[in-house]
């Protein structure tokens, strides 16, 4: 396993419904990131299709593996990189049951997927109308260490990142499509999730305007002490490379020992009280 590697935050805008164009943009960014030494390239939530799809999602959703995943799998193999991207996943057992999924492909092909657990359905968000929630956190053993995947609104719920960390992920990848009105929340919560789990957290957000929603970008790689190591521009497409060095976790974990101090018995109380809310 590699202790140290470069990760690219590929902050793109999407052409809604145009998978060919979006995949072309993903390919272009992977090649550029690779030239700059990146071994992991991360794209935003639903980066294959765009975010505001409404009923068109039924036309655009596809299985994993499926056409888009196959193309991006080949790209990962050809370039020898790990890539995280998002797409609406059609369940292979049904005809219209869709998940909001993050996919990890690598030099040996498809590694795995994560299905978003927390689907925002309030204000301008209508994800529960279209998506079935996922039921599992996702952590994958790779040459770049154990990588966990979460999506956007999941970051508001500390238990998702916690469980991902407890399964061994030292790098939590959060792909996102967050509009500008939510910026302050994400800037705070991404840092909090990194600190409380003494883990690296790579947050990659969408940019561009879809149906009046302006996505703010501001993608960032955060260290286990909560320091923002690198950050992309706000509101504009950008590609920024940062470095993950797992050795940085040890001194933090030693003197800011949240994982050592965890109290599992409180989780039972949490469950008990959450059910009574």
């Amino acid at each position, binding site marked *: 396993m590699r202790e140290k590697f470069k990760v690219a935050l590929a902050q793109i805008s999407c*052409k*809604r*419904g145009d998978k060919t164009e979006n995949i072309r943009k993903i390919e272009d960014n992977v090649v550029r990131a690779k030239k700059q030494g990146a071994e992991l390239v991360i794209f935003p939530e639903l980066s294959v299709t765009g975010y*505001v*799809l*409404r*009923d*068109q999602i039924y036309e655009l959703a596809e299985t994993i593996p499926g056409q888009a995943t196959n193309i991006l799998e080949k790209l990962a193999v050809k370039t020898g990189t790990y890539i995280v991207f998002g797409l609406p996943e059609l369940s292979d057992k049904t005809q219209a049951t869709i998940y909001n999924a993050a996919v990890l492909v690598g030099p040996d092909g498809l590694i795995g997927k994560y299905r978003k657990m927390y689907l925002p359905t309030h204000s301008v968000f209508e994800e529960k109308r279209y998506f079935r929630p996922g039921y599992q956190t996702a952590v994958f053993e790779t040459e770049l260490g154990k990588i966990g995947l979460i999506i956007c609104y999941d970051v508001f719920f500390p238990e998702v990142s916690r469980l991902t960390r407890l399964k061994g992920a030292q790098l939590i990848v959060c792909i996102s499509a967050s509009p*500008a009105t939510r910026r302050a929340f994400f800037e705070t919560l991404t840092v909090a999730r990194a600190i409380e789990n003494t883990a690296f957290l790579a947050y990659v957000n969408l940019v*561009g*305007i*879809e*149906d*009046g929603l*302006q996505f703010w970008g501001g993608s960032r790689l955060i260290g286990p002490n909560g320091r923002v190591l690198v950050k992309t521009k706000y*509101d504009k497409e950008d590609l920024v490379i940062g470095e993950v060095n797992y050795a940085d976790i040890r001194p933090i974990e030693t003197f800011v020992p949240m994982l050592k101090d965890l109290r599992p018995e409180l989780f039972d109380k949490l469950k008990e009280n959450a059910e009574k809310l």
Partner: protein
Amino acid sequence: MELTSSVLDLNWSEVETKIRSFIKDYVKKSGAKGIVLGLSGGIDSSTTAALSALAIDGNKVFGLLLPEQETYNAQDIEHAKLVAEKFGLKTQMIDITPTLKTFYNTIPIFETADKLCKGNIKARTRMIYIYYYANKLNLLVCGSSNKSEAMTGYFTKWGDFAADISPIMDLFKTQVRKLAQHIGLPKEIATKPASPKLWPGQLAEEELGIKYETLDLILYGLEHFMKSEEIAKQLGLKKELVDKMKHRWLYTEHKRRMLLTTKIEYRTVGKDFRLPSTFY
């Protein structure tokens, strides 16, 4: 939540950037050659025109001055020209009086005393002129409605509210005034009393029965799910006044929505035919 004027304070540079990005992005994606809008010399259309010019360049923004005899005001024309000059807009002035007279003379049930019905003809006639330019010159119609008017339904259905985009519609009137000052609109425009100019002497605050400073705080409270009692208490108002504004807001939803129909088939336009507003 404390209802004071500070709740309406925003970072005006950020607001300006957001609106400019929105206009620029939409014009580009739609493939239109620019924007056309009615330029009345009032604060809303002046601000919208200025922001459009800042977003896509004044020579791509067409301001139509559409005065008519009854409400003609030389100062408004002067103000509209001032904005056009400052922000480099293209303009054209058309006197719509003859068109209006034709309507008045050819509608068998026309009553000149019914100033609201008559006034709405003016707003809708302007819409027709503006859309003609949009069609003919491949321009987008940019609306100038603000959130105070949108929420209270203080506009003409299919008239001044009709547009392809409405960039300042999420800002209350008092916020538009601040944004206007921020982007450098002449002070005399930013501070003059609002009027839809549907009939001579019509003033918005007089007709609504409330000052925008108070109305906007009531609407802000309603937007944030506050109850009438709480809003009235905080603002030192009678609950009846708050309820009157709330009533205006709730009972004018039909003016802001897609046409209502009855559900018969599998997917219904305006109900569960849910598509993105644009697909680019």
